[in-house]
Structures are given as C-alpha cells and as structure tokens.
C-alpha cells in the first residue's frame, strides 16, 4: 500500500499521511483525492468527501456524475487509480476486500436491487445478519431467540412480515427495495450507503423510507444517493452535489439549490 500513499502524496504535494489522518475525530469516512478512470474516462476526478459519525448525508448529481462509482470505491468493488479512503482513523479501506469492508461496518444497498432470489425473505435477512461469517461458524450457526426477534422486528419495519416465507425472487420491485434495506438493517453497519432507495416506490412508501432513514440518524452514519428532489428535501440536512466526478457544492439543501453552478448543471447547457 506504500505505492498508494506515495501516489496520493504526489497528487497532494506538501501533505503527509500523518497530517491527513489528524483531522477531526468526529469524521467516520474519509475519501481523499480519489480518481477512477475507465479507459481514460474519469468517472471520479480527484474526489474528496467526508462523512461524520451519525450524520445523514444526501448525495445528488446528474446521471453519470460518479455517485455509484464512489460507493463502488468505498465498498471495495472498484480500485481507484489514485487517492485514499479511510474508515475512522485507522482503517485503510483500500487494503481490504469487499467482505472485510462489510465486516468493518459498511453496508450497502445497490442501485439495482439485488437480493437472493432463490432464498426466502426470511433467509435473506438471516444471511445478512451481523455475526461471525467465517466458514465453520456459519456451518454450525443456529438462530438464537434474540436473533429471531431481531429478524421479526426488521420484517415489521420493512413491511414484509406476510411475505417472510416467500422466495425473494417473487417479490415486486418495490418489495425488493425494502428487502434490501432490511438486509442493510440486519447487517447493523456503522455506515450505510444507500443508492437510490425510493426508485419505484409510491409516495406513501417514500415517506416510510424517509422516516426509517431519519430514525437511523445519530446511531448510524447514512449516505443516501437519490434523484428524487422532494425525497432529498424531506430528509436532508447536508447535501453534496457531485458533478463529473468531483464535488461541485456542499451545504444545506437551500444553499446548494441556490448555488448558481448547481443550477447551471441541472438546468443549463
């Protein structure tokens, strides 16, 4: 990983690793100077992005801005060409693979809902449940009473109690979205990355999702990517606008809405 650091330093001359680490202790996630290119096309361009402990952050931006790619980098799906991703003060996420990152406490809901279609809803939640996920413990695992209660509770939260024993593949698109959120809850992560959670939901469902995400605030850090501005407005304290792979603006919903550059990106050209 020395190579990563050196490359990063080259992009940020004058700063050392120690200095970068020594920022406010309330910060949970550090994304620093991350660049990702696909065949020369920069999907992320020297992106820097920070999330505080317990914060609920919304990320908006036009299609192709790099929102999903940013999540890919954080969760280990995509390796950046340059930059630096830290979880807390000490965990270098670029050194970890996807399962370790998940175990470190980062959960993710995908833009395109992906659940285990052959498994029942209940089993989906069971698999996602936080716990020892090594091979042998998984082989011998038994559900304890507390764990059953937790699954039942989450089933209630996501409104799928009646569907608990149906295969997930049989659910509707919106229900799959809920199930994925439920899996995220079962993981009980420190940081939730939620990519377009309300696509395909009714207004009522949206409200419930907003409620749910707000209820997580404080205990968990949540990053929500969403195109639906009403939804964003209903939950957002701080909003980050991504454009062409870097942060264009950051602030409260009102601030960014009136930022002329943001207006131009959304309306202009």
């Amino acid at each position: 990983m020395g190579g990563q650091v050196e490359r990063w330093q080259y992009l940020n001359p004058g700063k050392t690793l120690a200095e970068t680490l020594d920022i406010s202790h309330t910060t949970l996630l550090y994304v620093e100077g991350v660049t990702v290119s696909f065949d020369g096309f920069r999907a992320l361009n020297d992106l820097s992005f920070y999330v505080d402990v317990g914060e609920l952050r919304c990320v908006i931006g036009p299609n192709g801005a790099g929102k999903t790619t940013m999540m890919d980098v954080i969760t280990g799906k995509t390796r950046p060409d340059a930059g630096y991703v830290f979880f807390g003060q000490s965990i270098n996420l670029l050194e970890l693979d996807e399962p370790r990152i998940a175990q470190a406490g980062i959960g993710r809901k995908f833009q395109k809902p992906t659940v285990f279609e052959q498994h029942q809803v209940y089993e989906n939640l069971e698999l996602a449940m936080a716990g020892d996920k090594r091979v042998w413990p998984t082989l011998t695992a038994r559900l304890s009473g507390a764990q059953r209660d937790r699954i039942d509770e989450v089933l209630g939260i996501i409104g799928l109690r009646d569907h608990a024993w149906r295969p997930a593949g049989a659910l509707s698109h919106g229900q799959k979205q809920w199930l994925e959120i439920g899996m995220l809850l079962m993981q009980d992560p420190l940081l939730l990355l939620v990519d377009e959670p309300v696509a395909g939901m009714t207004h009522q469902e949206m409200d419930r999702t907003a409620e749910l995400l707000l209820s997580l605030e404080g205990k968990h850090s949540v990053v929500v990517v969403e195109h639906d501005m009403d939804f964003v407005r209903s939950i957002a304290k701080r909003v980050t606008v991504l454009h062409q792979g870097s942060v264009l603006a950051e602030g409260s919903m009102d601030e960014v809405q009136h930022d002329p550059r943001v207006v131009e990106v959304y309306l202009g050209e």
Partner: protein
Amino acid sequence: MGIVKALKGDTGGQVMLAVLLVVTLVVPVLNLAVPETSFWHVSTYTVTLLGKYLTYALLAVAVDLVWGYLGILSLGHGAFFALGGYAMGMYLMRQIGDRGVYGDPILPDFMVFLNWKELPWFWNGFDMFWFAALMAILVPGVLAYVFGYLAFRSRVTGVYLSIITQALTYALMLAFFRNEMGFGGNNGLTDFKELLGFDLQSDGTRAGLFMASAAALALGYLACRMIVTSRLGRVAVAIRDAESRTRFIGYRVERVKVAIFAFSAMLAGVAGALYVPQVGIINPGEFSPLNSIELVIWVAVGGRATLYGAVVGALMVNYGKSTFTAMFPEAWLFALGALFVLVTLLLPRGIAGWLPARRAG
C-alpha cells in the same frame, strides 16, 4: 438429531436412503446365503456391479454439492476420484508382496520391469491401510484446496472455471501416463490380491465392499445434506445466485467455495478408493476429461441441487450404459451425446424436477 434435521423435508432423500438400506441388507444375503441354483440368487458379478454404481453415486453426490449448490461446474471431479483410487491402488499393490510375477518382496512388478532399484519416496507408508485411506481423502482434498484457492481467489467463475478444471484433470492424465511418475504409467495399477487380508476375489469380500460403498454413500449423503441445510448451505446458494452480493454482506466467498470444493473432492476420493478394489484396476484413463464430464450428466439427469437426484441419475445412466453397450455397442456415444443435449434442453431440472413437493425456485 442432526440427521433428522438434515433429512427434514427431503422426501426424495428419505426414500433413497430407505431403499439403499434395504438393498444393502438384502443383496449380500441373496448373494451369500441363497444357493446359486435358486431364482433369488444374486451373482457376485451383480454385487460388484452394484457396488461400483454406488461409488459412482457417491461421486455424483460430490459433484452435485458443488454444482447444484455452489454453481461450480467442475469438469475435473474424475481427477479427485482417480487420485483416491490411486491411493487405494498403491496400498493394494504393496499388499501383493512377493506374489507378483517378478516376486520382488518390496517393488511392484512395473518397477522391477522398469529396472528401478528402490521404492520411490512417495510410495512409503502405503503398505499401511490407514495411511492409504487417509491419503485417499487428503490428496484430493489438498489438491482441490490449492487449486480452488488459486482459482477462486482470482475470481475465476463460470465456464472459465469449468475449462480450467478440465485442464487440471487433463494435465494429471498426461502426467500419470508417464512411466517416470512412478504410478505404473499406461497400465496403471492392477493384479491386486487382497485387502486387509481378505481375498479380493472371494464372494465375502465383494459383498463387504458393496456394503462399505453403500455405507459411504449414505454417510456422504447425510454429510452433504447437513451442509446444504445449514446456514453455510444457504450462503453457498447465495453465492451461486449472486456471488458479488454475497461479498457485500460480509462473506468471504472464496473461503466458502474452497471449503466446500475441497470437501467435495474428499468425497470423490473416498468414492475412488472404494471403486478400485471392486473393479481391480486403476489406470490414467480414469483421469480422462470424458469421464469427468460424463459424471456431470449423471447429476443433470437426476436433477441438480437435490443430492438424491445425483444418486438416482448416477444409477440410471450407468445401468443404461451397461445394458446399452451390451446391446448396441456402436450406438452408445450417440445415446450419451443425445442425453447431454436432451437433458439440458428439455429436462433442466432432471428427473427430480418431475417430482412435486420441491421448494419454489
């Protein structure tokens, strides 16, 4: 308790095990106790044939475990089977002692023939049954572990993985054909005399091997059921259906894969070790890619991801093969080829797919 849980809801498996139990108890009696003249007598030839089929069935169960539940279409399981067989063959070879053609007390005939002066180091220990039995399990297991570690770590999946497993067995076949390897080259290992002091030609030994094969099949089946009904089994299916998603909820996919793959290879090794004393020979032909891919079709015929389907498929296809090749030797390859095409096209869930009471999916 664990057994009961493992078989819960597995009607096919319960029926299969019940039939197996009856056959295991009845056939040896009909063979040993009923006079040859009687209508009810079962010939030793049939007993051995059945025993051979049972080892194939165990092999098929091993393949179904990785293919049906983990989505790994291994075209190299014949190699693990053959390795188990070679381990047993080496033991049987050393049991021959000085009764070989050349009468050398230590060296097997083929080594005398090659003018070798001493036993290669890796033949040491194979004069002890327990060691050979251990090796029959460990060697395939370790090979599968190393191979799986390399392949799964680099995230080789799908047809890539299939062809690489085929390359593995192909490479082993080439290697075992070489005399210098010290496994009898072309001719392999044969002319066995006895196992644990029992004459391999005697009816009693044959019946005993048959019963051992049945027991191995039953145990192997139960072990696989326990795996697939555990949470690990559900993780395996999750990997089969959405590998990358499974990673994001925190499972080390490659470890799960390598563990189940290696376990499956060990089962195949056990099957091979039981197969060799019954057929009396093991040669590099067992590594041929055709063998490995043929056994995949047993599983496909029986029905994937059911385990008992693998048993049914292995028995049916092999029974069919025996009768078919006896009647129309020319046409067997046509039939086998057609079986491949028809099962994949028309019967994707195999015979088990006809049976009701299968969980949705």
